[in-house]
């Protein structure tokens, strides 16, 4: 492990500890929201690296999350039946299942992505989102519209006097998100990230420099869907269920919103974006429920989407860097650049 990577891992560990400490300041519902946001963060981080660094737009990351969720539910249920009495083993088996299912699906899509340019891949992934409820009805293992249950992971004995179950699930969510996102961050900074930017910048030039665009695109898509799958596993832990309705087109577009608003290509931006897509709809809907019943019912769920749509257009038009691009407008301390790999613009929107 070279010096920048170990520094990055150290920073990730510190951030994880800070996030876990923060759960003590939150009530159970907020902790549940935090767990949801952590799950979304893993998926959005994968998406933002994919879109920002390779320029491939996936509208189907909700399906990859669902794949992870189903993988988690199936593997952990099987493990819980095989080994009754243990709580941690089904959890770990579930994570393994999530990685396996989302990884295979991601690899297949990645092979397709390597051959497709922008709009084709977006259309293919969109078709996948629309076909998810059908797949759930046709494939028996996915258990139709009601979806599958995932085993409940109770608070361990040693902690049970200290924390509530929501807080425990928030811890798990934070830990899994950290495991999913840290490799992405390392990859983004390292050689792999450089190769992705090279392919985005000019495929022919990249090929001349012995970078194989097909391999890079396939790899990027696979890694991205692994992160999304772990995010889906987090949601399966927090809600104890996976159903196609939870991973519809609306949710898939919200993930894109989070990546765009946070700033395409930025991991910190992905964190901010996922917090926004979890908290803002809840805020808007609680405000709307204060309105008269009819109007409130119409606004419920829709006003937040309307706002998100408008914000996405505004961000793309006016501030393509998103939230992550805001601090960059300030002058940078002179010596921070030297420790990084030479950073070409991570975001093709800003190339003007």
């Amino acid at each position: 492990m070279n010096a920048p990577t170990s520094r990055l891992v150290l920073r990730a560990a510190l951030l994880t500890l800070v996030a876990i400490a923060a759960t003590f300041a939150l009530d159970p519902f907020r902790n549940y929201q935090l767990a949801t946001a952590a799950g979304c963060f893993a998926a959005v981080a994968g998406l933002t690296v994919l879109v920002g660094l390779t320029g491939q737009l996936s509208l189907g990351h909700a399906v990859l999350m669902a794949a992870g969720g189903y993988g988690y539910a199936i593997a952990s249920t099987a493990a819980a039946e095989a080994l009754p009495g243990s709580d941690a083993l089904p959890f770990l088996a579930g994570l393994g299942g999530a990685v396996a299912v989302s990884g295979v699906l991601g690899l297949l899509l990645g092979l397709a992505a390597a051959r497709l340019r922008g709009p084709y891949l977006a259309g293919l992934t969109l078709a996948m989102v629309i076909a998810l409820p059908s797949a759930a009805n046709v494939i028996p293992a996915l258990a139709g519209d009601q979806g599958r249950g995932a085993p409940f992971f109770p608070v361990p004995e040693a902690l049970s006097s200290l924390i509530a179950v929501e807080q425990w699930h928030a811890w798990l969510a934070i830990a899994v998100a950290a495991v999913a996102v840290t490799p992405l961050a390392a990859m983004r900074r390292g050689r792999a990230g450089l190769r992705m930017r090279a392919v985005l910048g000019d495929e022919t030039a990249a090929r001349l420099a012995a970078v194989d665009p097909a391999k890079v695109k396939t790899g990027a898509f696979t890694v991205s869907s692994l992160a999304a799958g772990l995010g889906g596993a987090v949601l399966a832990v927090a809600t104890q269920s996976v159903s196609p309705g939870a991973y519809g087109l609306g949710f898939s577009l919200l993930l894109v919103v989070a990546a765009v608003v946070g700033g395409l290509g930025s991991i910190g931006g992905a964190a901010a974006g996922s917090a926004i897509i979890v908290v803002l709809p809840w805020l808007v809907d609680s405000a709307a429920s204060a309105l008269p019943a009819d109007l409130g019912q119409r606004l419920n769920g829709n006003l937040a989407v309307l706002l998100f749509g408008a914000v996405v257009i505004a961000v793309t038009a006016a501030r393509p860097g998103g939230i992550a691009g805001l601090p960059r407008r300030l002058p940078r301390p002179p010596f921070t650049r030297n420790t990084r790999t030479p950073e070409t613009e991570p975001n093709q929107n800003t190339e003007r």
Partner: protein
Amino acid sequence: MDRLVFLLSTGLARGAVLALFALSLVIVWRAARVINFAQAAMAIVAVYVAFALTAASGSYWLGLAGALAAGAVLGALVERGPLKLVPRDTPLPGMIVAIGLVMVLQSGLAIAFGPDHRPVRAPFSQRPFLLGDIPVLSAYALFVLLLAGGVMAVLALLFGRTSLGLQLRAAAFAPETSRLLGVRVPRMVTAGWMLSVATAALAALLLVPTELGLNPHAADLLFVNAFAVAVVGGLDSPLGALIAGLAVGVLVSLVTGYVSAAAAPLAVLGLLTAVLLVRPGGLFAAKEARSA
């Protein structure tokens, strides 16, 4: 056998709608080299306009004219509005703006009209004719086939035989040269958008009476299927859109009839994946003249 004939004939009507919507995607692709991911949402806005006009006046035909006009206006507004704000040298910003538009339009409709599915009456009976003992097309399906065929013929004449069509094609294929020759390229691009969204609005309007009812997401599946059709047919090829549209319509109809309704989107997804992997340019595409 009866069943096969019935499924084939309903598949043709379904395919005509698909082909029309796919044609709208082909038009905007040829005019501006973009895939408009907001096409379904924009078309549904126009259908709501038609719904309101028909409810107010009692005339289906006024509603139909209103949908075409609303589609054209919406196409121009979007092309001249939000899409002008982002750089066009790469497809990504335009796609993201289109996704934002989808969210704004669909949630706006849900706020304005409520989330209910509104039943829409067809102008003709949907009861199938009997040919001997075999149920075949309904009057409405026949109307859909004739209208879709007529519109496609008019579009073919427009693009192939008129000066406006020539300018539209020239502006799409060689913008710089066309500008030198006096073609107002931006105006032609806008015209392409207007034609495209009006066509999509017509397709969505024809579809809605055969579905569960009018709601903001009524055309989502139509868009996905039409995208598959456009890709299978080759995004540059109107004839490909027609043939692939009829074929996919029949395929969806057969899968729905013999397997289950749930399997139809999977069949389309499978077809789309297979074509994209084997021939990304589409089955009917001419050889690539430019790589935009």
